[in-house]
């Protein structure tokens, strides 16, 4: 459907398809004919056929709808915004976070708290980093604003807990060193779009 058709609010001018419904009979003879027609139409048995077909599909053709949830999980979209992950650089294994503090600033529910300091190489080091998942609304702004794709949303959505405040530390969210080779590049919110190269324009030099 094109946008013009979609924006057309003049109800009744569009191309609606009307169902070919008969009028309800009022006279006795017409009512009787309708009853006879409905009696000998196989509609009821078509209904029985549908349910039997679905049962055979489910039992013998492996088309059962049920997912036994705690034991098997459906794949979730890469754009799904669940509990955060902290990514590492693939080459060196260092964490990507540069301690810029943008995520802390943009967080609209004030749930990210971080402290940074300079290490011996005058490089920003994250000394404290917590996310309060009792407050986090999983809006995705932190992942979107992160210039290094360091904080991203992972796929761990089962975060029910007995306490309202569930703090997560930087080390908990950071990719473990021994699983570095399994670290996936984040494709979701805030990631570079697949056609990013085409969108790059040369910087105008003459201001």
């Amino acid at each position, binding site marked *: 459907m094109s946008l013009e058709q979609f924006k057309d609010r003049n109800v009744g001018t569009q191309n609606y398809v009307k169902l070919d419904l008969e009028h309800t009979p009022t006279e006795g003879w017409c009512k009787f004919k309708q*009853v006879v027609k409905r*009696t000998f139409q196989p509609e*009821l048995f078509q*209904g*029985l056929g*549908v*349910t*039997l077909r*679905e*049962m055979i*599909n*489910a*039992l013998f053709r492996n*088309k*059962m*709808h*049920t997912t*036994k949830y705690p034991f098997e999980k459906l794949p979730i979209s890469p754009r799904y915004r669940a509990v955060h992950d902290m990514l590492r650089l693939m080459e060196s294994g260092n964490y990507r976070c540069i301690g810029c503090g943008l995520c802390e600033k943009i967080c609209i529910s004030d749930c990210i708290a971080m402290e940074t300091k300079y290490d011996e190489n005058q490089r920003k080091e994250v000394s404290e980093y917590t996310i309060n998942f009792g407050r986090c609304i999983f809006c995705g702004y932190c992942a979107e604003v992160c210039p290094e794709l360091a904080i991203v949303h992972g796929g761990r959505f089962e975060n029910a807990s007995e306490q309202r405040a569930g703090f997560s530390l930087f080390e908990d969210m950071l990719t473990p060193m021994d699983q570095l080779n399994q670290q996936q590049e984040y494709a979701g919110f805030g990631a570079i779009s697949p056609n990013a190269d085409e969108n790059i324009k040369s910087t105008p030099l003459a201001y």
Partner: protein
Amino acid sequence: MDATMLPEVTAAGVIVKAVIILAVIAAIAGFGTYIERKILAFMQRRLGPTHVGPFGLLQLAADGIKLFTKEDIIPQHANKFIFAIAPVITAATAFIALAAVPVFPDFTIWEWVPFLGGVFVPSIAADINVGILFVLGMMASGLYGPLLAGMAQANKWGIIGSARTAIQFLSYEVVTGLSILAPIMIVGSLSFVDFNNYQTDGLWMVVYQPVAFILFIIAGFAETNRTPFDLLEHEAEIISGYVTEYSGMRWGLFFIGEYANMITIGIIASVVFLGGYNDFWFIPAWIMIILKIAFSFFFMLWVRASWPHVRPDQLMWLCWKVLMPLAVINILITGLVIMI
């Protein structure tokens, strides 16, 4: 199979038979809830109960424990005596009706069994010669259960449920009687044994009386409160109708009664219309009767999964304006054919 060749039926045999019927049918009635949930689930491409036992088979035990241990609540303004006795009426009439229908083949208890050795257990607990009348009458009086339950519980949904019970009873009962009258005219007897023997050599009764069979099945659905006509307790409209205020085992008794009635209707349909407990080709008789009853049970669940239910006024319209004239015409034609 001459009836005079069979051993004498003693009181001990009848008591054993009654205990067997009570135990087996009550177990099957409970098991029917499991079957129903499974079949409905498969037809909606779900799994149904799976977690308790293998394939969820022990779900029945879990439900039983739950029902037995639940609090037995009697509402404040209810008529306590009638409220307490109504589920018993439903369950008891359902089992009394089973006394006069043939359930399982007859057998003699082994000699080495203490006290009961050599006792002949008949296939019918009470082989009365008006079996059909007795069974239909008992199943009809079973509707006193919902009627009294709904009126005794001081609940508006219950009142609507019992009003619908009365409507349903007035609607289907005429069709049940008239539809089964034509086969009775052909066989000339009201005994299930005579019906069975009539179909031993010849064709099944459904070949002679297809219209009566369809009418009886429709009336049977109404009689057992199954889905096209489950007006008494339709959840979407009247919460649960007559069982709204019930809990625990009193609630369970209604459902044992309902499932026992489903089995009874299955047995009547099998014996009267579908050839009874006779051998069929190479399949022995006892397998045939179980297959027929199982299919009629499955058919009730199948219909529940497929068809929407009707309104009370539609049921009454259907029964009195369509089915009853059809049944009368069927009886008329049957009578003419017998006369000629």
